[in-house]
């Protein structure tokens, strides 16, 4: 009998950890760099939520499309977008994923199936219906996944898209990353129908809630949902309950949080710590292996920041290029 009790082989577990750690260090570093004032625009950090994006994206291929959010760095990295291009993009450099014209909230890489982060809340949902419809017509088993937060879940676009996905039986998955706050407004206040599963049921879409801090819970549930969508089973809804380590945006004073909430989240709801504890206790991966990945990730993030700082800005002649893109 294999010593590995998990549903992924060791190399895939290492890949998942590397992705989650890369997201974490990318965001932790941006938290520092943004405070220095060198980064244009806004950044919304995904730290604390890594198990959700990674647990889902481990099931996806490049042909599968995702539509992300304003908090999209983690989705990009989990989907395979190059960290160096992302960092340069956030710094507004010509070497960025979108040649410095998008910034944090518009990173896209169609070659990886990443249709883009999105500054408009809930705007990814109708886009993913288009991707889902295309996959259905192509019949290639592709799926589309849209992410949104608990705040954006109240947008009409999300609800309209759920209706459309249901009536067209699209291979689309709606993922609400429920970190408890719509910017600074608690979901306890802002949700008229208090359960996301109730909402999905209203459209005849099956819904599942999982612990979004547990990579394995997300991975297993997402696997079943994605397999079902690939095989023609239609749309589904997945709620990942999670925490975000930083504020809504960088600079958010987070006065809406309870005293000690951030410390509690870091101590007991850190998906990376939970993952590390599970795989090391099972004896599948050693702390030394994971520490080595930590060092490699830190070095990569450091190099990407230094390169982004050195890289050139777009020039005036670049202003009217890349305005339209062929999907």
């Amino acid at each position, binding site marked *: *009998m294999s010593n590995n*009790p*998990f*549903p992924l082989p060791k190399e895939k577990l290492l890949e998942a950890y590397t992705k989650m750690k890369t997201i974490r260090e990318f965001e932790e570093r941006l938290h520092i760099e943004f405070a220095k004032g060198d980064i244009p625009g806004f950044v919304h950090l995904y730290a604390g939520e890594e198990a959700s994006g990674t647990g889902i994206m481990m099931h996806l291929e490049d042909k599968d499309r995702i539509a992300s959010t304003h908090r999209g760095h983690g989705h990009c990295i989990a989907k395979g977008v190059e960290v160096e291009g992302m960092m340069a993009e956030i710094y507004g450099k010509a070497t960025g994923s979108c040649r410095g014209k998008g910034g944090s909230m518009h990173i896209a890489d169609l070659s990886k199936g990443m249709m883009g982060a999105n500054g408009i809340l809930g705007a990814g949902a109708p886009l993913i219906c288009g991707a889902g419809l295309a996959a259905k017509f192509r019949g290639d088993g592709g799926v589309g996944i849209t992410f949104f937060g608990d705040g954006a879940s109240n947008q009409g676009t999300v609800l309209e898209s759920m209706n459309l996905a249901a009536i067209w039986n699209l291979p689309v998955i709606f993922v609400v990353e429920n970190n408890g706050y719509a910017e600074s407004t608690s979901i*306890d206040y802002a*949700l008229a*129908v*208090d*359960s996301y*599963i*109730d909402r*999905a*049921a209203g459209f005849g879409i*099956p*819904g*599942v*809630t*999982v612990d979004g801090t*547990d990579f*394995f*819970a997300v*991975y*297993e*549930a997402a696997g*079943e*949902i994605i397999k*079902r969508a690939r095989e023609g089973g239609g749309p*589904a809804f997945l*709620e990942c*309950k999670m925490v975000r380590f930083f504020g809504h945006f960088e600079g958010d004073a987070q006065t809406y949080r309870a005293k000690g909430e951030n410390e509690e989240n870091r101590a007991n709801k850190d998906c990376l710590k939970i993952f590390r504890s*599970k795989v090391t206790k*099972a004896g599948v991966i050693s702390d030394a292996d994971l520490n080595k990945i930590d060092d490699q990730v830190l070095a990569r993030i450091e190099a990407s920041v230094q390169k982004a700082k050195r890289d050139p800005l777009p020039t005036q002649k670049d202003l009217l290029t890349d305005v339209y893109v062929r999907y």
Partner: protein
Amino acid sequence: MGPLVGIVANPVSASDIRRVVANASTLQITDRANIILRVLSALRACGVQDVLMMPEKSGIRRHITRAYERAANLKEDIFPQIHHVRQDITTTVQDTLKATAAMREAGCKVIIVLGGDGTHRAVVSQCGSIPIAGISTGTNNAFPKHREPTITGLAVGLAAMGRVSDTIAFEGNKRLDIKIGGRADDIAIVDVAVVTERFVGAKAIWKPKNFRELFVTFSDPEVIGMSAIAGLLEPVSRREPHGLMVGLTPPHEARMRLNVPFAPGIIGAIGIGEVKHMQPGVPVRLEFPAGTIALDGERELAFDQSDDVTITLVKDAFRTVNVSGIMNYASKQGLMKVN
């Protein structure tokens, strides 16, 4: 204050992966609130004035508060006063465990439970000798019997008000105790299933090729879930002293295969091995070397070759409200007659 009745309503039961892999039902928050309102009316009709509820923040409380406001506006005095247990809300099973312990401390006469087998199991782990009355709002509801909640509320109200003797009102139930390495790790009230998956993950179990061993406190051919396997082999009532253990094998390797509704809407072939009675108080050692132990339908405990795992059937481990017995007694004795 008169007799106090506790209510534990799990707002997030029936939301696991079985909505996707099976066509398991979703019970909306408003429906859960309406069930509680019907129970509350029934309790008040029997004279219960005070109820202690588990707090939650998934919407049940808000819907009930609105109903109370409407009743007050209409000058309808039909509900008991609701008190909430003072505790932090985590939206995890911890809420149920803490609230039940608080209800025990507060001296509740009965605790009404809204949930599936998992929620009932959590309450049983903390309720001590306080009887529970189950209302099924979960996925597999082998333990709580399907019944209109108003009737459950009436039976609980009559029992709580002392209108029915304890010998009629309450009955004992069996429980399964799980020990790993001699340490009491957990309990189950319907079934313990051993599956080959060695991680907890999304918790639910729905892959027959991974089923290996099954232990049940009772078995009923009319229920859904793992205990349905035993129910279709040999029904064992809740009152009989013994339980049942069933060896399970991958269907393609089995000499005997049985079509079983092991999840809502899923009827699949299960490979059956040896079937034995399980006697109370006699620990049974797990034969399968490594996997996960599912308690009342959900993977909870992972174990491997280094763990010594035993399962023990315990008789009269906790009490439930005998709704049928109470209502029949109420009929014979005219307890519902209006003076």
